[in-house]
């Protein structure tokens, strides 16, 4: 195992020694995500601490770990929705701040009830202009002389809906379409500002198998074609394994980053979890992490 390129950012593992950067970026490569000795505290509980990592431009990264370990917290910290209690975080070379249009976000799955009477298209559009003060009446803006901007926004919304293949049902109320169709429109919403970083929180959770396939194809295609750096929180790493550049593993207040081959090993995960964790490889190339039930490790990968 090449633990040299791994970063085990824990006080226990390293004492007071400062954590090293994960594999230092080659000269010129932009770090899209940069965390330095970062920690997040919610109330009295420290979710994770002393986390230093870098994600370079264009990388496709899975964020893994047991339930409640702080995977969503990591995304929220990068969005500026949760303040760091220690350390620094920057995105695209600037300190994190809310409302960054260069960051697209898909929160943990939200289901729109059948009685939510708003078109999928309107939700996508809110991703573009929803933070702007005023009323959602395009006619008014046209009359006020912003006709060009209105047309341009409409064009962008159409375009992004076509990218996720949702043109057929974008005009139907969001509550009336299937979960997979809703998710495609929500991905369109995350993409509508042409982000350079996508933060996706369990985008496949709760979808039926065909929808999972479609949605994961869309995510991979878009992030590749448009060169969007993507951090994707996942429950099961196997469907993504062939496409991942790196894996971020969050567990027990610690965060590891490295290639899947480096991180998802008995040796590495044992350093986080203790000696009872084992990584198994099945004959068809799937990996399975087996661990103590009470840690909730056995579910995944």
């Amino acid at each position: 195992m090449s633990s040299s390129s791994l970063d085990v950012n824990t006080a226990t593992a390293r004492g007071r020694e400062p954590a090293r950067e994960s594999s230092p970026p080659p000269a010129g490569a932009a770090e899209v995500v940069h965390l330095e000795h970062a920690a997040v505290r919610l109330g009295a509980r420290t979710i994770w601490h002393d986390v230093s990592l870098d994600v370079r431009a264009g990388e496709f990264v899975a964020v893994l770990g047991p339930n409640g370990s702080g995977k969503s917290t990591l995304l929220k910290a990068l969005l500026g929705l949760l303040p760091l209690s220690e350390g620094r975080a920057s995105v695209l070379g600037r300190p994190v701040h809310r409302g960054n249009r260069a960051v697209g976000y898909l929160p943990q799955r939200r289901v729109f009830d059948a009685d939510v009477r708003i078109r999928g298209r309107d939700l996508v559009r809110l991703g573009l202009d929803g933070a702007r003060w005023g009323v959602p009446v395009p006619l008014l803006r046209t009359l006020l002389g912003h006709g060009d901007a209105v047309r341009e926004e409409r064009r962008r919304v159409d375009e992004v809906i076509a990218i996720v293949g949702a043109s057929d049902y974008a005009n139907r109320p969001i509550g009336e379409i299937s979960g997979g169709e809703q998710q495609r429109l929500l991905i369109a919403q995350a993409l509508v500002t042409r982000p350079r970083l996508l933060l996706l929180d369990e985008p496949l959770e709760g979808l039926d198998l065909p929808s999972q396939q479609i949605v994961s194809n869309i995510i991979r295609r878009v992030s590749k074609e448009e060169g969007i750096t993507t951090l994707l929180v996942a429950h099961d790493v196997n469907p993504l394994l062939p496409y991942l550049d790196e894996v971020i593993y969050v567990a027990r207040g610690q965060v590891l980053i490295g290639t899947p081959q480096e991180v998802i090993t008995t040796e590495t995960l044992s350093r986080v979890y203790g000696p009872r964790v084992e990584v198994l490889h099945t004959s068809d190339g799937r990996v399975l992490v087996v661990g103590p039930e009470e840690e909730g490790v056995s579910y995944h990968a």
Partner: protein
Amino acid sequence: MLDSGFSWNLVADAQDMLRFPFMQHALLAGTIVALVAGLVGYFMVLRGESFAGHTLANVGFAGAAGAVLVGVAPVAGLLVTGVLAALGIAALGGRGAGDAQGGGRTDIAIGTLLALALGLGLLFERLASVQAGGVYAVLFGLVLAVTNQDIVTIAATAAVTLVVVTLIGRPLLFASLDPDVAAARGVPVRLLTYVFLIVLAFAVAEAVQVVGVLLIFALLVTPAATALQLTARPARALALSAALAVAVTWLGLAVAYYTPYPAGFFITTFAFAAYLLARAWRLLARRGVRPARRRPSWHTAGETARQGVTPA
């Protein structure tokens, strides 16, 4: 009491009706209030905050009775207690759409506030020895007794409400439907919860003066719910909700003028009828025109996504 009964000459009827200052006042106040309630009601329904609206109205009952007790105008009591209650509800975690888990508990907290408000209202009413008619007016509205002074108050609060709604409309829509993404996009979701509940308190205080505490949903909920049955486009739904609220108010006042029965009854009945028609229309529309739902098949899934079309 009526000079002339209803004729089928509607122009003459309208002229007849509008000869009386009390009808002019009622129509003017009713129009302003319905416009505000229709617009604010759209957001209230979308946010699932009907119970908060109901509570604000009942708190208004205590406020109006309390105002009489200390000798100020009931509408001042309505506004002050309404805003205080709005802040209280927001602090308890004022429920927005997509907040299903927290919703139940908030509802219970609002419910306790509601009960307290009604109890206080009862006490104030007894202490102020308000004659039964006063209480009746607050509960069921007394639109035909609206004065010039009332109209000035209603117009002023309506203007404030409309300006605020116009300013916060789009981010409010975003925060109501999709609070997590809205927050990430920089929308002050929590602040908007407070601002909207205060706006709602204003709208309620205005509407109470026309339809009263108990019938308030006829203007706040029913037109918005009707509009949402008919269109899923926010701009159209907003306009339709306001138009419906104004229409049922006019109709209700006109019919009440020609009959011995109260306007509140007709306003609520017409609003409900519109809602039923809208539901029926949607049911028919769905049965009749819409093609069977098509789903992309497993095999063509990747292709489907790439081309952005669903295979026929």
